[in-house]
């Protein structure tokens, strides 16, 4: 199939995925991922190079957006309670899955590290959606949960950057440019956005794209990863975006309309349904490898910091989606894991988005009256949290 035929097929798939997502109320990313599995396995498509590039770029953009969506003032208030939950939520499954894969499943060291990282994540978006639906996003428990998720996520991106770096001399300009951008962009962006923003040609979005492409290129030359600087860059820009919601919405529109669909489709297309079917036992082991340590590690801390919603908190901290997919795709693109291991990791990531969330909502959904939520809430947030 020619590149343009593949593009036509994928864009049609993206359109159908969007309509299905709206009709049945499931996240578009999940539908795109599942659509990718169907399209990839039905048509036996090769993944063209343009799709690999767009997927990689969208992964870094998703990471930047995840950083930009963090409520930094809220994290500053809750960091003491959140750091312990967030760190244990990362480290326990990372260690258990890594050891399990290395010594139980016979994966090599780098494969095991990718497995551990991919399954150590917690999905900020899944947690956030449940908190908003329950009204807990305005309560102390919700704020602590969101902050803990941030800690887990930053540990994952840091792990992905640090564990797989094989530095060349390019690491110097990569680090220098990353630091310069992290320090300089929040200072220069108000001027840039003020002078060139609010135009249909969107220079402010192009600025973000240019910066992320620069990080991708330098990260590649340095044999490192752009995800950590991209995440921190998003983080330092979060205050700016909180004050300029329209800019963030425009960035989301571009990302959701064109870029992230290809990221999730590519993830799905790289999944081998046959490999999954042949390895259901390993799938179950890896799923348990994520869930059991999350429970063993997070639950005791949740009883201390988020009582009486400890089980609810633990279940939500066991979810994963975006960073699990990003990590698994990195492992596949870098040739660290093969398609079978990638398929297993993605399947566990998707299961971990669905199963703990469904159990939390069905059996442990807190019945929080609005008055209760208001009384539990911390002082009004200065920025992002106010509108969340």
């Amino acid at each position, binding site marked *: 199939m020619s590149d343009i035929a593949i593009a036509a097929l994928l864009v049609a798939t993206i359109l159908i995925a969007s309509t299905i997502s709206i009709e049945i*109320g499931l996240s578009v990313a999940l539908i795109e991922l599942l659509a990718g599995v169907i399209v990839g396995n039905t048509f036996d498509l090769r993944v063209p190079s343009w799709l690999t590039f767009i997927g990689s770029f969208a992964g870094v953009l998703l990471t930047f957006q995840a950083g930009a969506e963090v409520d930094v003032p809220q994290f500053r208030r809750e960091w003491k309670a959140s750091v312990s939950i967030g760190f244990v939520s990362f480290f326990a499954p990372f260690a258990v899955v890594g050891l399990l894969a290395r010594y139980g499943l016979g994966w090599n060291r780098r494969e095991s590290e990718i497995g551990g990282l991919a399954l150590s994540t917690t999905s900020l978006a899944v947690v956030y959606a449940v908190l908003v639906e329950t009204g807990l996003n305005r309560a102390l428990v919700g704020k602590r949960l969101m902050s803990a998720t941030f800690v887990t996520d930053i540990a994952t991106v840091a792990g992905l950057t640090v564990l797989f770096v094989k530095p060349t001399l390019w690491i110097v300009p990569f680090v220098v440019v990353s630091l310069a951008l992290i320090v300089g962009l929040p200072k220069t962006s108000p001027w840039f956005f003020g002078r060139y923003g609010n135009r249909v040609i969107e220079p402010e979005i192009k600025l973000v794209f240019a910066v992320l492409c620069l990080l991708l290129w330098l990260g590649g030359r340095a044999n490192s990863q752009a995800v950590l600087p991209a995440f921190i860059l998003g983080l330092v820009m979060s205050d700016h975006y909180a004050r300029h919601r329209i800019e963030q919405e425009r960035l989301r529109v571009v990302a959701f309309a064109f870029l992230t669909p290809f990221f999730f489709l590519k993830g799905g297309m790289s999944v081998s349904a046959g490999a999954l079917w042949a390895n259901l036992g390993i799938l179950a082991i890896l799923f348990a490898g994520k869930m059991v340590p999350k429970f063993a590690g997070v639950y005791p801390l949740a009883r201390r910091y988020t009582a009486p919603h400890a089980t609810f908190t633990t279940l939500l901290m066991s979810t994963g989606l*975006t960073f699990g997919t990003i990590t698994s795709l990195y492992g596949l693109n870098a040739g660290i894991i093969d398609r079978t291991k990638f398929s297993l990791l993605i399947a566990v990531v998707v299961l971990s988005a669905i199963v703990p969330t469904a159990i939390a909502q069905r059996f442990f959904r807190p019945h929080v009256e609005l008055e209760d939520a208001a009384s539990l809430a911390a002082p009004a947030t200065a920025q992002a949290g106010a509108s*969340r």
Partner: protein
Amino acid sequence: MPFDKILVAIDGSECSNRAFAKALDLATLANARITALAVEGPLPAYAATVGEVDEVKREKDLFFSALASRVRQEAKQRGLEVDVDVRPGHAAELISQVATEGRYDLVVLGHRGHFLRDHLLGSTADRVAEHAPCPVMIVR
């Protein structure tokens, strides 16, 4: 007519608009108090980005705020006052719960909603008819 308190479920769909009109007719005839319950359905399950959740939430808030204004206006034109209650949740569960807690005498709702998901697990109307504590009028 023994209907003093009427609860009508609204979601902005054609069926719900017809149900609301019928509820206004009934309220006029019975001199009943009428409450419109607008249920903001669930947010996208298993979202990948906070942005996706935020955007949907914002769209829902805007949509239901406009809907509340519209039904108040329609009731006013008929010389009636309507209380509008906008709540997040699952439609069938919430309508039955509000009908029970508010001791309503009648629930009025359309026979179908906006989306495919409204039909996947049986229609909201079917489930309300099964679980509501009072008579239910389903409008086609």
